[in-house]
């Protein structure tokens, strides 16, 4: 019987993870011991403090990170190889924690619903029953959303940092399960919200199954779960190639589902529409960042030797995703659905960046890598998306958020500031210069073109043209269309929580568009993955 050896953990480097999970546990304890009426303020404070502390710890860890592999990467392989804390991980951690803080702020908003949060008073009460009415009149509130959010953030932090397939799977589940729950907790339009949660859960469970099966096949092929071990096997092994290819395909299904790429995008519009908008805002930015980090690590580290097999596959997926997202967004009549399909299109643009992987020797001096392009794009898209969804929460009519596009007509005349901000986020998503989106788009397109995928870039440009149409059409609707009587939305008075979130996103979108230099330096300074 082998001796049991105690695993050695790098507590300092794992600090951000530990803080987030620890805070989440504290949140659960608060739920257990505080009376229901007085939970909200402690929960919000604990969450914010925890996330801010984790962000601080991330920055500290990043400062201390040592160069490895001759300066190509920085960081360490921690937790016995299960968690890799390198430059890209730390960058994504910082990004995710910022999105998390913005998400908590949106969750905590209560002024829009007249003193209630955007979450159901009592999730267990059936829609339209006496119990629900009572919950509403008593002003009940589900403060469990804060620990749930923290668990989701913890999973997202772990996802791109995982060093083997099992950790990646666990992270996938940890980030997904709280999100399924959160999606079903909307205070208004509860049936839609519950339907969204169920859909998301069922499809998500399927995709997890695919991921697990893929992991099993890869283990059969490589005899190892760790990415470094798989990489070795891919480079040395020549037999049983079909196992590897099938494994890659099945793993891709799991990850492509999470990022919402075609043909696994079907859940996106329904979930984005049904979920409480605060959840959608956080989820659209956070899940995408975490899942693309994981996707990039899997393909760049574990399957780097097999690049010629997966690049064509991802190219086809990217093309299908961009075109489908852009075309279907045109026919949407709901703002949240339109943004959801635009998110699908952006997934395609991000995949365009992912396929631009090149060997280290193929890049010119001073040229940035495709990974850096993807990381930057995630930053720009995340801020625009959080900001846009946050604005959706404050444009309301009698029935709550006015998500039908017709209600937005003429908003530019009634509230030029809100309409102008929304237009600015749309322009950033459309990739107009002097917004962050343009620099991001430029970065991912350039890496794909450098790697020789000019035909994907051409399709990406065609999709951008299509996408511009619906973005601009919405701007036209807000500024130059007269509202139809009876169907108008107005801007509600929001508290500093929402307004501050929007302002931060707006500032980030402007700054990243005009002076992207510092953030790009941060991205390029992050270096490569540790292989």
């Amino acid at each position, binding site marked *: 019987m082998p001796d049991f050896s105690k695993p050695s953990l790098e507590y300092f480097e794992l600090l951000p993870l530990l803080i987030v999970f620890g805070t989440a546990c504290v949140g659960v304890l608060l739920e257990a011991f505080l009376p229901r009426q007085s939970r909200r303020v402690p929960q919000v404070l604990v969450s914010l403090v925890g996330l801010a502390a984790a962000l601080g710890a991330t920055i500290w860890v990043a400062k201390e990170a040592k160069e490895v592999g001759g300066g190509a990467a920085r960081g360490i392989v921690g937790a016995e190889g299960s968690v890799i804390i390198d430059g890209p991980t730390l960058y994504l951690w910082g990004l995710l924690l910022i999105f998390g803080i913005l998400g908590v702020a949106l969750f905590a908003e209560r002024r829009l619903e007249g003193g209630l949060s955007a979450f159901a008073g009592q999730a267990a009460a059936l829609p339209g029953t006496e119990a629900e009415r009572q919950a509403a009149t008593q002003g009940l509130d589900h403060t469990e959303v804060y620990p749930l959010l923290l668990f989701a953030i913890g999973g997202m932090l772990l996802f791109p940092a995982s060093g083997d397939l099992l950790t990646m799977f666990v992270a996938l589940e940890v980030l997904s399960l709280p999100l399924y729950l959160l999606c079903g907790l909307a205070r208004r339009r509860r049936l839609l919200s519950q339907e969204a949660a169920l859909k998301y859960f069922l499809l998500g469970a399927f995709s997890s199954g695919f991921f697990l099966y893929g992991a099993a096949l890869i283990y059969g092929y490589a005899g190892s779960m760790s990415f470094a071990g798989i990489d070795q096997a891919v480079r040395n092994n020549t037999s049983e190639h079909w196992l590897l290819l099938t494994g890659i395909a099945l793993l891709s299904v799991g990850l492509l589902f999470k990022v919402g790429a075609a043909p696994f995008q079907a859940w996106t519009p329904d979930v984005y529409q049904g979920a409480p908008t605060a959840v959608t805002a956080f989820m659209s930015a956070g899940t995408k960042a975490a899942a693309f980090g994981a996707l990039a690590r899997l393909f760049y580290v574990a399957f780097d030797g097999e690049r010629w097999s997966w690049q064509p596959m991802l190219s086809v997926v990217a093309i299908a995703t961009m075109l489908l997202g852009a075309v279907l967004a045109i026919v949407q009549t709901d703002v949240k659905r339109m943004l959801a399909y635009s998110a699908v299109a952006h997934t395609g643009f991000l995949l365009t960046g992912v396929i631009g992987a090149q060997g280290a020797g193929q*890049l*010119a*001096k*001073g*040229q*940035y890598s495709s990974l*850096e392009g993807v990381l930057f794009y995630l930053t720009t898209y995340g801020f625009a998306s959080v900001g846009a969804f946050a604005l959706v929460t404050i444009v309301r009519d009698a029935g709550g958020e006015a998500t039908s596009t017709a209600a937005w007509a003429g908003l530019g005349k009634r509230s030029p500031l809100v309409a102008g901000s929304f237009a600015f986020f749309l*322009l950033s998503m*459309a990739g*107009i*210069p*002097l917004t962050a989106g*343009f*620099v991001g788009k*430029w*970065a991912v*397109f*350039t890496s794909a*073109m*450098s790697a020789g995928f*000019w035909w994907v*870039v*051409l399709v990406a*440009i065609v999709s*951008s*043209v299509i996408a*511009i*149409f619906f973005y*601009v*059409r919405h701007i*036209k609707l807000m*500024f*130059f*269309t007269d509202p139809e009587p009876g169907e108008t939305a107005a801007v509600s008075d929001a508290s500093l929580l929402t307004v501050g979130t929007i302002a931060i996103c707006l500032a980030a979108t402007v700054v990243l568009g005009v*002076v*992207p*230099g510092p953030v*790009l*330096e941060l*991205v*390029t300074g992050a270096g490569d993955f540790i292989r």
Partner: protein
Amino acid sequence: MLSTLIWLPLAGAIAVAVAPKTLSRILGLGIAAATLVVGVVAAFRYDVDKGMQLTETHTWIEAFGVHYALGLDGLGLLMVLLTVALVPLVLVAEWHSADDADGGGARAYVAWVLALEALSLAVFCATDVFLFYVVFEATLIPAYFLVGGFGRGGRSDAALKFLMFQLAGGLILLASVIGLYVVSAEQGTPSYLLSDLAQLDINTDAGRWLFLGFFIAFAIKAPLFPVHTWLADTTENATPGTSVLLVCVLDKIGTFGMLRFCLGIFPEASQWATPVVVTLALISIVYGALIAIGQDDVLRLIGLTSLSHFGFITLGIFAMSSQGSTGAILYMVNHGVGTAALFLIAGYVYRRRGTTLISEMGGLEKATPVLAGLFLVAGLATLGLPGLSSFVSEFLVLVSAFDYAWYVGAVAVTGIVLAAIYVLWMYQRAMTGPTPPEVEGTEDLDARELGAIAPLMVALVLFGFFPGPLLDVANPFTDGLLAHVGVVDNAPVVPLVDTTVESEGGH
């Protein structure tokens, strides 16, 4: 110097946007005038024989090899002067109509105009391709809000169409801009500086593909047949002042870009593409003039005459001779001045008669002789009457066209004949004839309106008789450009020049 030129109107736009509404127009005009002064000072500091000057270079995005780099050469200087001169005139001419209750108000109009001016100036000064692309696309945002927010009923659809065309062109250009980065990265450190790019050794195939991206974008911008369809819809629905900015300033970016980027970075591909481009230019000249004749809406008509004129400019550029290039540059300036005058006067007519339909006008000549007279002069400038500035440039372009091939020249000349028809026929229908009773009391131009037009008229006559200063600025640029492209002039063939003169005399 150039930074001041660009940032002054931009800061002005923000100032106007936050200042009280009552101050908007005065403040805006003051800023536009100050920008004009800066532009003129820049012109005096400019030394015609020194190539690119007044340069500024700062690293902007290091990771992409992008610089905030500005500089002026002969071409840029003329475009800058045209821009800074037209903007104050537009603001004066649109003094009241910008305040239309139906539109977004004077504050928004003035702020967007100044923003557009700043970005256009940046386009003409940029010597970094990335910076150029950024401001090239960014001009569309103020332009979109100017078209969509002010003007007539169909403006929001027209604005959407305008923006879709322009952005589609912009994204095609983006593909080429990205391609340039890739080519540049393959040959060492990536850089977007124009001076570095001109030294690149681009292989023939790649060069032609990249050229195509640039050319399509500029053809949409200019516009050239067959991607011109946004033009007439836009000029019809926008206010005349906006049309001046769009057609006389913004569209010049198209032909400006052809000279600076197509010929400057891809000389081989430009020569390779010449037959096709010349054909498109000829189609634009004739087709634009023919459909202009058929228009009943005066603003549409003027828009379509520009299609014909941009055909001439493109023809001059791609004829690849010094007369052609110099003629094209002069044409860009003269077309800017002449068409601006036409648009503004048509705007005055619209304000008096409440219609832009030529068939419903008629008989204004007696009631408003000054207005009618100026309209005629602007029209004659458009058709290239000797003594007015357009004649010189049209003549140079035709010389180069005949030099290129006699049949090209012959087709181009028909454009002039057709121009005579659409201008004179328009004048006859709109101004002459019996004066209807409701027109009789119409007031003639007041001092403000006259003040906005007078500088343009002076320029038309002045540069018609003394094109020297313009030629002095344009010629060194042309010589440098053609040397870079590798074209040696043939001596112009004398009999062909005579033909041109005869046809000029024909009307």
